[in-house]
């Protein structure tokens, strides 16, 4: 019988039937291998702190040739990519290119501001970015009545999940936004503003804002369990004073020299000209790695650290909740289970 954390074997941990069931559920998705693609260098709005309009990638010319995109995706498929993330600057402006991608690799997600509806036949998960209530959105993003327009575009759309990005200034507003989305039957998950390289503006989190965000996330998770796709361990991983790289050793190529296995081997971040640069390759290029708490980064980086979480049933349950959440947020048809661990577990350090 195991008596201390260090004495648990993996078999001990899986002896718990709830853990074993969840483990078997999530491991079926270990085949997912992602890459990301900037679809257009244009956007219909301009948000303060947008990662896209930092660095060189914004200047890459657009390739609008559907066949060129189809050929790229075929090559991606050949090298083992099974999941695509279509992002920057605004993919809904080039729906025909998104469709070309979907027709080659049918698993994926699109990150959009939600102001232009993406045609229903492109059956990817749709991540709709929300940065506060309408008053704040108008200030930060320069667009009026955003939430109402986003909800109207994705009403009763099973592809949609709203991603609320917490900044120091919109923490309290998450309550009203979550209530509105829950009333409309929408799903919501959370993101943390992560400063682009060189950004020193008011959107950057502080120790105090991280703590406040943690409290509000916990409250919303508790109050809206049917609508909020998140877990206690998600809250921990994304609101610690340390960023994701310090906590989990980021495995994207930008911070990982190894090309032997995992993200360091397979991940690429293509720009609008269909070129990629290993030195810049991560899911949110030009983000300051020291400040990175981005939800997309966490989905890969935390998930990749399974081994270090397999130390006791509670810690492994927390990791399973995180992976279950990531899959529910990113993969169409995947249904999130009830969280297994509702206590705050500090991320385990590498041994």
């Amino acid at each position, binding site marked *: 019988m195991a008596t201390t954390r260090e004495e648990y074997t993996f078999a001990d941990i899986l002896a718990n039937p709830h853990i074993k069931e969840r483990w078997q559920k999530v491991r079926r998705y270990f085949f997912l291998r992602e890459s990301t693609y900037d679809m257009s260098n244009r956007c219909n709005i301009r948000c303060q702190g947008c990662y896209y309009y930092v660095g060189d990638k914004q200047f890459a010319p657009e390739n609008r040739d559907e066949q060129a995109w189809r050929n790229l995706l075929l090559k991606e498929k050949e090298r083992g990519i099974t999941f695509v993330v279509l992002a920057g600057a605004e993919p809904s402006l080039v729906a025909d290119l998104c469709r070309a991608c979907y027709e080659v690799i049918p698993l994926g997600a699109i990150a959009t501001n939600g102001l232009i509806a993406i045609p229903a036949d492109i059956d990817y998960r749709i991540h709709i970015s929300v940065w506060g209530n309408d008053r704040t959105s108008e200030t930060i993003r320069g667009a009026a009545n955003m939430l109402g327009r986003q909800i109207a575009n994705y009403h009763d759309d099973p592809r949609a999940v709203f991603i609320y990005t917490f900044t120091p200034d919109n923490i309290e507003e998450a309550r009203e936004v979550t209530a509105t989305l829950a009333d409309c039957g929408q799903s919501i998950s959370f993101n943390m503003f992560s400063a682009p390289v060189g950004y020193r503006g008011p959107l950057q989190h502080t120790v105090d804002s991280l703590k406040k965000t943690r409290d509000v996330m916990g409250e919303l998770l508790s109050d809206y369990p049917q609508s909020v796709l998140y877990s206690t361990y998600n809250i921990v991983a994304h609101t610690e004073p340390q960023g994701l790289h310090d906590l989990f050793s980021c495995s994207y190529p930008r911070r990982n020299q190894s090309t032997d296995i*995992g993200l360091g081997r397979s991940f690429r971040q293509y720009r609008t000209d269909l070129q990629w640069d290993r030195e810049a390759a991560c899911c949110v290029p030009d983000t300051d790695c020291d400040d990175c708490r981005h939800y997309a980064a966490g989905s890969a980086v935390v998930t990749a650290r399974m*081994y270090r979480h397999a130390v006791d049933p509670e810690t492994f349950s927390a990791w399973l909740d995180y992976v279950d959440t990531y899959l529910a947020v990113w993969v169409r048809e995947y249904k999130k289970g009830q969280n297994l661990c509702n206590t705050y577990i500090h991320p385990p350090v590498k041994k």
Partner: protein
Amino acid sequence: MNIETNQTISRVAEIIIDELKLEDVTPETFDPDLDLVDEVGVDSMDLATVALVLRDEYGVRIDEDDYPKLTTVRIIAQYLDDKRNGSE
């Protein structure tokens, strides 16, 4: 190659076949020098799963930083034996 390593090779192959549900291969027919990533299709999550089962069986903790060099069954077996014998 000693008897201990040969036994470890066979057991590591068996665990990989079992955990990754590989078909058309047995521990006896599994080429220990196949590149697990390039030729078998193993990825990092697969390897982490195998590493946990090996930790249970051999009491050896496999460092995350060591994953990239564990490219074949033979290398994994040698790694385990070296750790158990205290030579690494």
